[in-house]
């Protein structure tokens, strides 16, 4: 007899990793099914590589010969948390009720108060550093000490203050002191290549591995799920997968299924699972795709031009400019915040644009090197009918499955935010005393959100406030896809808090035999 798990979780990133660990700790028998391989986070990442070690000067995602990060359906145990930048905000009440506040987009069916205890639970188990800032729209949590500002942060903060704005210490799921048996960060500055000491959170080392001790969790890597299998009774009964290497097919059976494949891939999996899309009686699956968009201003801070190079890459960005537009007069809805200084020093594509040639050019680049900063505002998109996720049956991936296709059309409101945030970014950098090198002229998509949105009404949403699909009672979707609105804040902490809340709900329902 094949094992029938209590819950089959597909995807092992921030959402799936959190959900599976919390469920296993609550006593449920859980299988986590991940398309990618098991990655040894201590040895397989090129954290300490330099570009000249490679003929094309590109540091690869994994060390040569090590598998992982091959495709969106096969990243590896840990998903994108292996290479994320760990910025971890709580959303504020305004983020959950954007429509009520300014009329655009959609409200969440839950409030900040519903999620606050779970944000705290996550902070207490993974460790988040930050300062207590007392901001209304960016609630404080339970923090480890923040990382100090960089020289560049001090200059930018001074510029921002001239314009009446204030920066804060970034909040990251990175330990600034040893805790939970993990070391504190040693500021080696290449977090997005993978942290090989796990000072930075990743779901494999921090959530999944410890949960193995419960004896309730089984990890099934290298299993690219192609379908959520349905029974005749209208309930999900497990998943069908293709082995990443052998391409052999297999099944994992469960009493409940949770799809946690990272927004676009979760939507795609539901679309692959039934004609017209599984759990799509509302017709909303794939719609309301609302990725964050980023701008960018690249500049050289005068105060740092020609100064001796300092070993201060830190854990990338150390400061943040919280949204300040909510309370100001503006001709658009929603807002933006800004990360800055998260470029590291291994990339110097900007040197192409430095004028001149010869010894003078060489010196100019050397002088600019310590002073280069990228200022990156993040804007919130409101849903529109021309932005959605669907399948491209004409384009098959390496497993023979249709690719997921993103359609994004920027509307007037998005362009207004984009132009305004680029203007502010320029003004702040100029006020900080900087020479501007480049201003991006188009928005670029970032954190992917929407596509299976959460709501109380089964006619206008795909999942209920517990991330359970309205149509299939034992099918859950957990990740950015369920966000009805995006906020301008990095989303992952909210995904983890939602996963913790759903896990508690599922465990309680399972105890009553209601799942």
């Amino acid at each position, binding site marked *: 007899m094949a094992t029938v798990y209590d819950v089959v979780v597909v995807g092992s990133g921030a959402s799936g990793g959190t959900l599976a660990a919390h469920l296993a700790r609550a006593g449920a028998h859980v299988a986590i099914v991940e398309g990618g391989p098991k990655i040894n986070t201590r040895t397989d990442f090129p954290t300490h590589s330099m570009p000249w070690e*490679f003929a*094309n000067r590109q540091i690869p995602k994994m060390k040569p010969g090590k598998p992982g990060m091959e495709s969106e359906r096969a990243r590896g145990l840990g998903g994108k948390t292996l290479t994320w930048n760990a910025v971890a905000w709580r959303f504020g009440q305004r983020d959950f009720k954007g429509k009520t506040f300014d009329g655009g987009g959609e409200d969440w069916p839950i409030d900040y108060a519903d999620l606050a205890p779970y944000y705290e639970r996550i902070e207490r188990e993974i460790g988040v550093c930050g300062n207590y800032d007392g901001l209304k729209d960016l609630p404080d949590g339970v923090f480890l000490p923040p990382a100090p500002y960089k020289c560049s*942060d001090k200059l930018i903060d001074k510029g921002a203050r001239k314009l009446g704005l204030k920066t804060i210490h970034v909040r990251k799921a990175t330990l600034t002191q040893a805790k939970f048996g993990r070391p504190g960060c040693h500021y080696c500055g290449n977090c997005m290549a993978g942290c090989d000491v796990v000072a930075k959170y990743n779901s494999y080392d921090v959530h999944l591995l410890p949960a193995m001790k419960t004896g309730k969790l089984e990890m099934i890597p290298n299993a690219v799920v192609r379908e959520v299998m349905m029974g005749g009774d209208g309930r999900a009964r497990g998943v069908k997968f293709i082995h990443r290497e052998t391409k052999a097919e297999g099944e994992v059976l469960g009493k409940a299924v949770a799809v946690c494949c990272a927004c676009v891939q979760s939507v795609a999996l539901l679309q692959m699972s039934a004609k017209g899309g599984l759990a799509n009686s509302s017709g909303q699956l794939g719609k309301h795709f609302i990725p964050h968009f980023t701008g960018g201003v690249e500049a050289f801070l005068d105060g740092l031009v020609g100064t001796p190079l300092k070993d201060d890459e830190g854990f990338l960005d150390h400061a943040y400019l919280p949204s300040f537009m909510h309370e100001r007069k503006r001709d658009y809805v929603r807002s933006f915040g800004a990360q800055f200084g998260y470029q590291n*020093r*291994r*990339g*110097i594509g900007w040197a192409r644009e430095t004028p001149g040639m010869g*010894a003078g050019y060489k010196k100019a680049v050397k002088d600019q*090197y310590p002073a280069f900063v990228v200022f990156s505002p993040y804007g919130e998109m409101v849903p529109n009918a021309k932005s959605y996720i669907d399948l491209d049956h004409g384009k098959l991936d390496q497993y023979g499955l249709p690719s997921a296709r993103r359609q994004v059309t920027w509307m007037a409101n998005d362009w207004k935010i984009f132009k305004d945030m680029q203007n502010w970014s320029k003004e702040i950098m100029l006020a900080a005393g900087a020479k501007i090198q480049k201003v991006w002229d188009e928005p670029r998509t970032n954190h992917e959100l929407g596509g299976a949105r959460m709501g109380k009404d089964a006619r206008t949403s795909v999942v209920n406030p517990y991330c359970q699909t309205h149509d299939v009672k034992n099918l859950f979707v957990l990740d950015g896809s369920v966000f009805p609105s995006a906020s301008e804040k990095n989303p992952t902490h909210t995904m983890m808090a939602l996963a913790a809340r759903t896990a508690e709900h599922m465990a309680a329902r399972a105890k009553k035999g209601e799942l």
Partner: protein
Amino acid sequence: MAERRDALKIIGSISATCAFPFAADELYAQHEGTHGAVSGQAALPEPAYFSKADFATIAAMAERIIPATDTPGAGAAGVPAYIDFVVGRNPAQQKVFSAGLAWMKKQTKGRAFAELGEKEQLAILEPLCARCDAGPVKGTGERFFRAVKALTSDGYWTSKAGMGETLGFKGNAILGAYPECLHEH
């Protein structure tokens, strides 16, 4: 072709555009089978794509763009081999380079660019450089210069001589505490 242009811009600047950490090498499409060290070398290696004569021209141009000073120049940093590697894999670049090399032969009236004296070389390159710095360029010579400068820059500043010796980047020091900024900025 917008993609390819982006791709070229992106090389060596992954982290500057780290909003797209996964885009760079996917776009650039050069990461298969290329894991191998390119060491700095003084003598020109055998080119894989360019003819020996063209390779010598490019090497000489690269050395004028980033000359040896108190630290190595483009040649010793292995930049010519890097340019050979990149252009050999990129048809759009190949067009710019073959047109540019033909243009250069006309300027030198059949003599090899690498054999010209410093003054003569600079007399050709400096005006091109000035026009490239002034704004968008269309001329064959200018486009060629811009391409050589871009790849020289990418190749040099990502080399051990450029990034390590000239810029002083050590990379990945393990620090007990963050070196807090105590300056009066």
